């Protein structure tokens, strides 16, 4: 091992000496004892790392309410129920596998979950997120009509009131049905609105149903033969947006 290799390895050595007995560093540390120049470098490196570490650990102020907010989460977030325990989970998995095999033999109806997942993936797509870029809703509608898409749907009232800025749109395919996607920025938050003819999906009314999909939060509702789905980073953003609708 030469000094260059020893230096590379010793960059991972923690300044408080916790790694002193780790065999991974043994050869590099032997080299330190053999070579005075490397020893000098290592001693200075340890001091610098120690000082930087101490500075960083005091440099970042904590939001004073963070700890109490984290503890309060226990009251609002439901822990997983008993069936996540390993043995019970295995039993449930066996039952589900059996049911799955049976369900495979039954013709499938379009499911809300499948629609939600497909739209969430489209919302997360960063490459060619929109096919047509425009801040103007009328231009977006015209582009959609040129694609034979039905633009006779209700935009959420918040958007109608001009609270957001459209970024563009595209057409998303789901099980042979075409959904309109309009991308917005509202109060600095990215949101995508998907609208599609109900396409055999159940009508569950105008009250938004919230669910997560692929790390996003979604709100879905139906009305006038259409199904609407809105995606955002988290539920708080969606609720804030929809409460004005």
């Amino acid at each position, binding site marked *: 091992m030469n000094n260059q290799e020893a230096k590379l390895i010793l960059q*991972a050595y923690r300044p408080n000496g916790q790694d002193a007995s780790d065999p991974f560093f043994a050869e590099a540390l032997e080299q330190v004892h053999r070579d005075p120049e490397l020893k000098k470098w290592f001693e200075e490196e340890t001091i610098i790392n120690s000082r*930087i570490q101490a500075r960083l650990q005091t440099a970042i102020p904590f939001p004073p309410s963070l*700890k109490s907010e*984290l503890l309060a989460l226990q009251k609002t977030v439901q822990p997983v129920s008993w069936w996540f325990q390993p043995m019970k989970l295995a039993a449930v998995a066996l039952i589900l596998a059996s049911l799955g095999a049976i369900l495979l033999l039954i013709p499938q109806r379009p499911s809300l979950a499948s629609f939600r997942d497909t739209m969430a993936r489209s919302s997360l797509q960063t490459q060619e997120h929109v096919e047509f870029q425009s801040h103007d809703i009328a231009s977006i509608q015209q582009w959609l009509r040129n694609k034979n898409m039905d633009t006779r749907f209700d935009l959420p009232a918040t958007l109608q009131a001009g609270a957001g800025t459209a970024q563009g749109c595209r057409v998303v395919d789901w099980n042979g049905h075409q959904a309109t996607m309009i991308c917005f920025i509202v109060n600095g938050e990215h949101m995508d609105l998907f609208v599609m003819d109900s396409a055999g999906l159940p009508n569950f009314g105008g009250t938004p149903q919230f669910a997560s999909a692929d790390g996003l939060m979604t709100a879905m509702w139906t009305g006038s033969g259409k199904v609407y789905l809105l995606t955002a980073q988290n539920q708080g953003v969606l609720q804030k947006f929809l409460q004005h609708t």
Partner: protein
Amino acid sequence: MDYEQAVNSLYEGLYRFAWSLAGNADDAAELTQETYARLLVKGGQLRDHSKVKGWLFTTLYRIYLGWKRRETALPHYEIASVEAELPPVTPALVDKLENEAVSESLLEVEERYRVPLALYYFENHSYAEIAKMLDIPIGTLMSRLSRGKELMRKSLAAKSIGADRKIISINPPRQKESHE
């Protein structure tokens, strides 16, 4: 380890790591909260409670990556050619700098080097723990730590001579709302 213990003993390190990723207090707090919310929801799946710490850091990093999937590729500026003028970083030079300058220097390091560096400095994680959390080979981690320290020290050196404006803004704070 129950939930309250996990908050009491780990939230500070987790918040600092979140801050090193997000670069601002609001997003760091949100990342920390989302991570603990997931612990509440999924914590029952953790068979070995001694692994809560590693799970929390890994989960926070994955949430952050999820956020990033929605970002525009961030502008990336090359280091300006002031390197030759920079003084060597010594313990005395670090002592001379304000805390804020040190934390800014960390934020200026490109993310793939900054993440292991933050885990190394903030929570004193070992090389093996960091490699596991980031799911990268140990050799890669060594290179990233080495390069990360080098970049951070260039930034520290630049700040010590008041040249930070000349040097870099490698990775500006996260912009959740932006698009391609």
